[in-house]
């Protein structure tokens, strides 16, 4: 496999997406099924820019919470009391932060808790690196000017 080297000398790779990076794509793209055939297209209320930012933030909080929960604090310290205390503080803190964020959107979005507990997206953690402008992912969706190529419709 050829190495993808940049002129800078490091390996350029796409980074796995965080929700902030793809929320516009998820909400605005994809097959649209005939209104006559579908029961409803739910979630229209979440299409405002503010709601998108909130959703992306919640995803970030949840991934921090998952990462924090995975940390084995005992690994780095053998002493008895301190790790336990730290563990309690850390997980408690993360939990309440996440809860707070979720409570916050419940009112606005009719949201609920997230029982996110699988490890299937370990690799996404790297996605939190360098997302300085995650909120700018929320955009105006005014007339996507898809060019280059328009597919025939059925």
């Amino acid at each position, binding site marked *: 496999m050829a190495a993808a080297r940049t002129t800078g000398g490091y*390996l350029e790779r796409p980074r796995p997406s965080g929700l902030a990076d793809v929320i516009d*794509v998820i909400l605005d793209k994809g097959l649209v099924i005939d209104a006559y055939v579908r029961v409803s297209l739910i979630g229209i209320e979440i299409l405002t820019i503010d709601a998108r930012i909130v959703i992306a933030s919640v995803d970030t909080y949840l991934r921090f919470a998952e990462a924090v929960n995975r940390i084995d604090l005992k690994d780095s310290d053998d002493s008895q009391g301190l790790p336990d205390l730290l563990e309690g503080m850390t997980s408690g803190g993360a939990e309440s932060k996440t809860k707070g964020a979720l409570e916050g959107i419940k009112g606005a979005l009719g949201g609920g808790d*997230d029982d996110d507990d699988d490890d*299937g997206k370990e690799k996404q953690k790297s996605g939190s690196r360098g997302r300085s402008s995650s909120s700018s992912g929320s955009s105006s969706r*005014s007339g996507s000017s898809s060019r280059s190529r328009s597919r025939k419709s059925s």
Partner: protein
Amino acid sequence: MPTAGDASVYVYGVVSAADRSDVSVGGVESADVRTVEHAGLAALVSPLHADELAAAREVRAHWRVLEEASRGATVLPVRFGTVMESEDAVRGQLLEPNAQEFTELLRELAGRVQLNVKGDYDEQRLLREVVQASRPIAELRDRVNQLSEAAGYYDRIRMGELVAAEVTQRRANDEALALSRLEPVAVAARAEPAASQSGAFNLAFLVEKDELDAFSEAVGALRAELGERITLRYVGPLPPYSFVETDLGAGAPAWA
């Protein structure tokens, strides 16, 4: 609206039945994801009981189901929030009438992934360059600086107008530049409007999996070429959300 105990069906996407594998992450409402099959096609679905979704959580579920499903198969993602009456409806009203089109699309998209490349300006730098490059803007700026806020009102509007036009022009140039560098390594490209005020371009590419390294290399070269003027965000691989935009029947989204 479904009555209690009578689930409607949430639809995530369509895969080839031959490629489908079980999705282990929970779907919307934490329900197990199953498939409805017809003519070699499989729709990924899960039962839905509520008539109102906890949006923030369910966007995430939708996203992750498609992400997992697309690891082993080509998926045609369905737009978030699509609910049909029953599994029979999914079979009879989604898969059956569109079987040929879905099959062709799946064949066309097989072995290909979507990659998004967004560029963001360093705003201070951009504005400095705009002022330095335009004599009328520089002159207006000098004049406005010497006037009171009220007296300079129309000059400021005029200056802002010129700056906006200049920024729009630069966006178009930089979008064209990025496309010219990356499109040769991609199967197809879509340009979306820049997402924010400091956004330079917002591009989606369909790329052969086998060409991923070559594409990444081109992105790296573009990053080097743009230097500090534009910061790139390179995200993916994603299911081909931006390349399945065929309207099934008259189904324009309600908010379009």
